[in-house]
């Protein structure tokens, strides 16, 4: 990693200038990337008078977390005023099984497609892959009918099914591309050792998969957590995920629009995915290169 592109004899003077302009560019981009975050966080920490009086970019006078606690437990959504908390847990209950299921299925499928190549495996993979590109708006109506048919409409199971299915394309892609780089000989050796399909998966392949599991989990978690369309279309009321609730909260006003609460709500909604990225982003990037970039 330390072995990056540098060219030994340093022509120091022009280098210093280059270095400086490099930092300037990096810094400008950092500001650009941070600007929205700054606005959102800043606003969420201000009180209403401050918001109305000052500019969007002014620093908050003091760190005022009341908007946060309000958004979490007191803000009104429709006729109930319990804040985002119950919906947060809805999202958790929805996201965890979907992530686990789609990752597991993707892993198994990717494993079978790469390490047990049967006739047509590539076509099957291409067909699955194309699933990445279906705009979700297209599937709402037939999905609604299907969910109704199965009898899991307006339940968390419905959402888990939807997210699992439409996450599968991506997880399969990730795992497939990762497993392609695991030598086939490992599977052959294990076969001779007497291990079967699932034993090899469990004992050999899965222990090698953490990097790509991280990718799959982060990607799926982000996608599912941030989903609005499915959540809004297939659930109502108390069963809604946090994104829908946040949207309702932001659009629910009794009296004056509370920008600070809205922003705090947006932050609470984004917090889990943000934390995941900040904490595990490095592994995400690393695994992603293994999983989707074929260089």
């Amino acid at each position, binding site marked *: 990693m330390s072995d990056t592109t540098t060219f030994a004899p340093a022509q120091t003077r022009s280098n210093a200038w280059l270095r400086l302009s490099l930092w300037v560019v990096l810094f400008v981009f950092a500001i650009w990337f941070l600007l929205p975050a700054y606005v959102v966080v800043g606003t969420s920490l201000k009180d209403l008078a401050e918001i109305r009086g000052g500019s969007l970019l002014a620093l908050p006078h003091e760190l005022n977390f009341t908007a946060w606690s309000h958004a979490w437990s007191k803000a009104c959504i429709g006729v109930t005023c319990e804040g985002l908390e119950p919906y947060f847990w809805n999202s958790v209950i929805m996201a965890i099984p979907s992530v686990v299921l789609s990752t597991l299925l993707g892993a198994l499928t990717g494993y079978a497609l790469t390490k047990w190549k049967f006739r047509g495996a590539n076509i099957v993979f291409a067909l699955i892959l194309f699933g990445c590109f279906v705009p979700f708006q297209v599937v709402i109506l037939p999905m609604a009918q299907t969910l*109704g048919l199965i009898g899991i*409409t307006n339940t968390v199971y419905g959402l888990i099914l939807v997210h699992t299915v439409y996450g599968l394309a991506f997880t399969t892609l990730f795992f497939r591309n990762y497993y392609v780089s695991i030598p086939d000989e490992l599977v052959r050796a294990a076969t001779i050792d007497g291990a079967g399909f699932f034993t090899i998966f469990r004992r050999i392949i899965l222990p090698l998969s953490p990097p790509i599991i991280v990718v799959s989990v982060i990607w799926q978690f982000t996608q599912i957590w941030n989903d609005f369309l499915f959540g809004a279309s297939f659930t109502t009321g108390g069963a809604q995920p946090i994104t829908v609730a946040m949207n*309702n909260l932001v659009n629910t006003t009794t009296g004056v629009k509370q920008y600070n609460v809205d922003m705090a709500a947006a932050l609470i909604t984004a917090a889990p995915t943000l934390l995941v990225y900040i904490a595990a982003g490095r592994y995400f990037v690393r695994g992603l290169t293994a999983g989707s970039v074929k260089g």
Partner: protein
Amino acid sequence: APLKADPKAEVLHYWTSGGEAKAVKALQEAFAARGGEWVDAPVAGGGGDAQAAVLRARVLAGDPPAAVQIKGPNIQEWAEAGALADLSNVAASQNWDAVLPDAIQNIVKYEGNYVAVPVNVHRVDWIWANPEVLAKVGASVPTTWDEFNATADKLLAAGIIPLAHGGQPWQDATVFETVVLGIGGVDFYRKALVELDMDALGSDTMVKVFDQMRKMRGYVDPDFPGRDWNLATAMVMRGEAAMQIMGDWAKGEFAAAGKMPGKDYICASTPSENGYLLNSDSFAMFNVKGDDLIAGQNLLAELILGTEFQETFNLFKGSIPARTDVSRGAFDDCAIKSMDDMVSAADGGTLLGSMAHEIAQAGAVRGAFIDIATAHFNSDMSSQEAVEKLVKAIKLAQ
């Protein structure tokens, strides 16, 4: 009457802002007071945009909510699709025929039977004006469009924004339909926007309408796109702008800010020959299974059209009750003017459904109108071109 099951209703609505939310809360409390279990299903945003998807998804899944906030021709279409429950029993026992004006009855009845409960009547063709600002240029609220233009020019010269306006297509369409009503007259409005008469749509009058729209655009400040209507209202309140053309839900904003009608702000109808553009919210009851849900629907219907709720709700919302026998005592001058005007318009045959607010036309045609109105308003399209496009678009949408 004693029912076998406790009433229960899932209510799908998009009343999540301002007075609306308070009003729904009132309804929910009343429902609960009668032993009902209220399942709240708010879908905020976009004036029902998001709700439309949810509703279709739920109906297709065979699990519709009990009561849904829909209105205008949509009610007829859902009824035609066989999705709506018959409310004749409640209507008969509560004697709805007697208390609802014909214009409203037409909206909520399908093949002679009630399938929806009207909540209120909004008037759309209002001008909300700031008297102080008008006074600065020595003007009063205009009563003709020429006067409007003259006043606006004066305001412009004085560096005041004449017209506060927001940036969603439906707002453009709202202004558009008041201009159609004013410039073209009641009959033209009916021919063009209700009956979709191609001659009327393609007429010179329509060209004039667009000419006026082009002028209106000049009276709006450049920052209007993306602005919410209530922010435009606030501009009038603060005196940054002189007037706003908006339905009477704008009144809720004035009220919330503690402003008094007549004193802090003036409500006047937009220039027209006694025209009245009506917008009415209503709840449609969908076919559901289960005694508790049916009981809930009936109870809800009864409560919604009950005088008590009609009064509280409309006081919050700024509109006027759908039924005519609610006591006027608590309502302000603007509301009373609206009530009076509605009666006289109904008598004079000048009571019209709003196109922009989905009373005159259902989705596709309304969408076509809105498309052209907003496209014209937001570009430098010529009036002639706009008319041509309008004719084409309406033909296509029918």
